[in-house]
């Protein structure tokens, strides 16, 4: 279980507070207007944002851990791959930051690449891959790292709607198999409906506790309604 306990972030005049719990294995959407603090919340969990209060995963406080020490993976809006490394190397970084891998490790890298549908593309550099394929490489790395929490900061926003939903479905499928908890920022209600049972709404400086996505989107509160334009 992911717990945000009295989390309080001050950024100049902007302030964000969060007190919430996300059950293990859940897939939760994070929605809110631009500038409401969705990314700030994700950054705090990932370790890129100082905060007051505690962030715990399965009882362990993450607050003092460096980003790479935290039991989580994160996919950013862009820059998830190093353009100078091959697909396999980019994935392998998930096992060893020094890229010192045993033969077995490389076999595992190959396996996850196959699993995301990139068999045979191991030695391609990102520029030689399509946008969707690049996303698959990043997902393969997440898979290989096998961390219990996955944070998505709109990594597929640049893809078309169909491709984006394919990627989210891939992520959701993988997460379900591995029992991974997922927190994903999204602007698209259909994405939330498709894979997230629950949704955290961020507005007016607060991240609310997760509530049922279908109910929320059927009867959105005022702020969210204005934002969704429904």
């Amino acid at each position, binding site marked *: 279980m992911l717990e945000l306990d009295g989390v309080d972030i001050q950024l100049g005049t902007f302030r964000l507070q969060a007190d919430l719990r996300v059950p293990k294995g859940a897939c939760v959407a994070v929605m809110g207007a631009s500038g409401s603090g969705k990314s700030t919340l994700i950054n705090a969990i*990932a*370790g*890129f944002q100082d905060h007051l209060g505690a962030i715990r995963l399965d009882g362990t406080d993450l607050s003092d851990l*460096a*980003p*790479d*020490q935290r039991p989580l*993976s*994160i996919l*950013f809006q862009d*820059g*998830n791959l*190093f353009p*100078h*490394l091959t697909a396999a*190397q980019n994935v392998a*970084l*998930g096992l060893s*930051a*020094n*890229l010192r891998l045993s033969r077995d490790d490389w076999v595992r890298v190959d396996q996850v690449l196959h699993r995301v549908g990139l068999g045979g593309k191991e030695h391609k550099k990102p520029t030689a891959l399509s946008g969707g394929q690049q996303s698959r490489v990043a997902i393969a790395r997440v898979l290989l790292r096998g961390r219990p929490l996955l944070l998505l900061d709109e990594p597929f926003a640049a893809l078309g709607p169909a491709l984006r939903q394919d990627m989210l479905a891939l992520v959701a499928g993988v997460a379900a198999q591995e029992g991974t908890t997922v927190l994903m920022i999204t602007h698209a209600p259909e994405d939330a409906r498709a894979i997230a049972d629950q949704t955290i709404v961020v507005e007016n400086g607060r991240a609310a506790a997760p509530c049922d996505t279908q109910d929320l989107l059927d009867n959105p509160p005022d702020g969210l309604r204005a934002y969704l334009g429904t």
Partner: protein
Amino acid sequence: MLALLLLFIFGTLLAVALRADDLSGLPSDFWPTVWFTLMQATLSGALSVLLAIPVARALMRRSFRGKALLIALLGAPFILPVIVAVLGLLSVFGRGGLLNTAVGWFGGDPVSVYGLTGILLAHAYFNLPLATRLLLQGWQDIPQGRVRLAQSLGMRGMAAFRHIEWPMLRDRAPGIFLAIFTICLTSFSVILLIGGGPRATTIELAIYEAFRFDFDLGKAALLALVQFAICGFVAVIALQTRLPQSAGSGVGHTTLPVLSNTKGIGAFDGLAIFLATAFLLIPLGMMLAKGVSALGDMHGAVWPAAIRSLVIAVASALGSVVMALALCLFALSLRRGAALIDGLGFLILATSPLVMGTGLFLIVFPFVNPTSVALWVTGLVNATVAMPFILRSILPALQQAERDHGRLADSLGLLGWARLRWMLVPRIRPALGFGAGLAAALSMGDLGVITLFSDPQRATLPMEMFRLMSSYRQDSAMAAALLLVGLSFGLFWLFDKWGRRYA
């Protein structure tokens, strides 16, 4: 690393000052000297930047075959040995040069470039390529999004210039001007070739006079301090004028933002490129032609010297890149790191090579025979002298790499060595290659200011060229100069190419 550099900069000065009997007075023409130094450096810096603006702008907007090669060639003067470049310039602008021959055909009076004109001409010749390259970078760094926005809003001509290009120029030009100003501040060889006489006396020349004519170490040390003071002042101004850099990511270099595309402007661009090419390459071509026709006179002793110079150049290029990288990584970890790097760059530029050489000599000779460490010292000093340019090229690249991929690296635990090996070095490879190339070329052409360490059996190529000149063998010297220019440029090209291989 920092300590070593500071030792080079201040330790040597201290060594000279300590050896002095007393810190005696300044030379009689101190104020005119200071005035002239500042005046010529200001004019040289301004001229170089002003000329570079239309050239860089034209190069940015126009796309033509061989453009990359032309840009590379236009960089050549910056790495030429002074004597070669000035003789080349004189073959165009001198009394018997192409210009005066042409003027003669039309019955005009001969034009003389000796004096301030010649100094400015030569300084512009050396520094226009630097200014152009830095400004070109500035244009390339304008975010594509902003250009597209301007296009979509229908901005043309002055409007586009005001909103897109002017902010970039205001951001970059002062820094480039100050860098060239500082380079020209310590100019010495150029002044003593076409300066025309004692009217053109710089502080660096006064330092030389104090060493050579008066053997007054105190005066030399005092003058070196004055030089530092001026550069310190300049550095403070530089840090003040440095506007915060826009942290926009997503820089696209590939497409050319053809702004304000009207016919007259196109012709203007063509003219700017043509004139710059002619100005920079004809003198070089004249020298090369002379060298080629003298190739038969190439002396056998030139070859070992060439190999020695190559080894020193490569070693000092690697050395200075490693030093610069270490310093920049250190600077990244500091809050005011960029200011530290800028300040250090200015300090090194302000260092009098004569004082540095003499100070080093005073420091090492009680312990080892200076001649036996000649090559090492030469390499080390060359590496130091090239640092300001490498620092300037590496630091922004590192900052960019951190902006683009820093968080990803953090989240994957790419720290320390792994971060350097797998993320930073590959991302800043172009900057490293360019910096190493520049350092190698500068080292190649270095005339061994530190003659106190020279060793007759192990002369470098520029020394050998100079020796040929001082034994009446001008033709052989020109052949050696051709080899020197070829090797300098070859080294630069190789390093630069290495850097851009995957870019």
